[in-house]
């Protein structure tokens, strides 16, 4: 009887030891597999292959072709004002610079105070598209942008009208000037600012 009990104990120990050993090797294997999985995932992320679409290729070719002929030179905004009535003015904003120069994006922002109303905002031929034209209570913001048209990249060109709008002064304040928001007025070409701050209009006088 004693022998039987001892044998049962021995068998029990052996099975526990085998179970521990198997469990240990299984855990080790599992960890290795997990490490391998993480490694594969990392490699997949690192080796992500994105392909250029035809649109991308066309965009790049057209942009490079256009930029090859464009000269990087400073641009600025110029304002001219025409008095329509005592309190009504037509303001014309022009993009100025050397004729060989070009721009790919431009923001023009005016700060509006109480007593100033902007209406009839028109964009000009300086840029092919104007994706943003905003008249808010306290500002006017116009963005001109280069665009691909008929397989040709069209950049912003100087000495052309950027935008035109009508200003009406209302109320008792005798407003004589509109200030340009210097921080948010920008002209860019190839990720570089080409705005000539000293030449660009900062105050628009209302005669």
């Amino acid at each position: 009887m004693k022998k039987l009990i001892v044998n049962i104990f021995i068998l029990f120990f052996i099975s526990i030891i085998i179970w521990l050993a198997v469990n240990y090797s299984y855990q080790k294997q599992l960890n290795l597999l997990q490490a391998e999985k993480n490694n594969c995932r990392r490699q997949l992320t690192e080796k992500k292959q994105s392909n250029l679409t035809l649109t991308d290729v066309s965009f790049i070719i057209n942009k490079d072709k256009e930029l090859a002929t464009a000269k990087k030179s400073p641009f600025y905004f110029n304002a001219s004002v025409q008095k329509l009535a005592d309190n009504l003015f037509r303001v014309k904003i022009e993009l100025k610079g050397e004729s060989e120069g070009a721009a790919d994006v431009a923001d023009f922002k005016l700060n509006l105070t109480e007593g100033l109303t902007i209406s009839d905002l028109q964009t000009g031929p300086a840029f092919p598209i104007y994706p943003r034209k905003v008249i808010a209570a306290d500002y006017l913001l116009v963005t001109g942008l280069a665009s691909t048209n008929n397989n040709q990249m069209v950049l912003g060109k100087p000495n052309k009208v950027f935008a035109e709008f009508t200003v009406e002064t209302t109320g008792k304040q005798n407003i004589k000037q509109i200030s340009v928001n210097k921080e948010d007025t920008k002209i860019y070409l190839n990720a570089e600012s080409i705005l000539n701050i000293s030449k660009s209009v900062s105050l628009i006088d209302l005669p």
Partner: protein
Amino acid sequence: MKKNNLRIILIAVLFLSIILISLSSSINKLVFFNRAAENQLNIKIKLQGEYDKITGEVFQTRVVLYSQSGLVKEYLNQSLTNDNQNIFKLTIDTTGLNLNQTYAIFIKPDKYLGKLFCSSTSFSTNCKTPQIIITSGIVNLDLTQDLFFSGDISPQDGKISADDISKIINQIGQMSPDYLATDINSDGMVQTVDYSLALYSLSKNYTDDSIPFAGLTVTPTLSVTGDPSTAPTTTTMPGYPTSTPYPTSTTAPNSPTTTPSPTSAAPASGTCKAIINGKIYGNYLLINFCSPLINEQAYMCVSSASDCTATNCIEQVITAAKAGINTCTSGGGTIDETKSRPTLNCQVEFTPGTCIPTPTPTINCSNDGPSC
């Protein structure tokens, strides 16, 4: 003598084995309890763009918690990872936060504009009063009802301007193994799709949401015209937060005190009161369950009376029930929508004026709750 020695050795080995086994299992338990004791806020948001074929993208994100009186805590460089398609998730540690107040959350992912949430259904300009309740333990917050728009690339200034677009145009075609700032969707290359994404936000003149909790509200009236090149779909669901039917949710007994905001909502906005009755059927691990909803009350700030409908209310109950079941069963439980939906009944009442919202419900998974 020999036999005795053998026995002693065997008993000793047996004893040691038992100790080893019990130790290893108790370590597992300790780790488990440690995790459960953490205070976490799991947030899900929806980003503009198509992410179903892109893997491994991570956006460093700034998360700021606000109370009605101002900034409470700021979390920088939180990892926002992809969950499913354009749904992304992040986790913040909420240990040490005052659990007796309601919060609003401002989230600003890298390359994207920031958005402010007062609750899962009240965000951006509608976010006037913090309504998010953070409890101890793990809280899940689904903020996928509105889209985050992209284009505010580094250095981020809260708006999309000429320099952002010019940088993208300049880098179109470049490989981006280290995720260039201009690679908006982080797919490894700067493409026209990145340009389109930013251009859409620019054309709509989107900016970071303003924070109305420190007396700094600016709400200009805009008249915008433009030609967006892409049109992502935005889903906006007006609705009602409800208590989660099963596993039982506990709605905080006291509604937070609402301080009228200096920039109050439009005259048409107000409170939508809903009284909900019905049953939520579901199953978990092949076991069917049912939880009754008896005169459950919920209040929600809505922008107009037309948002205060029974249909919207039922949709919100189903959504909340799904979220509750998902949270408490770790994704293992499902709601039987076809069986639950016909039983649900919402009586809604719209009251214009100052809004008193129901706080975000706390999900108590340990409580079994009443059965049908």
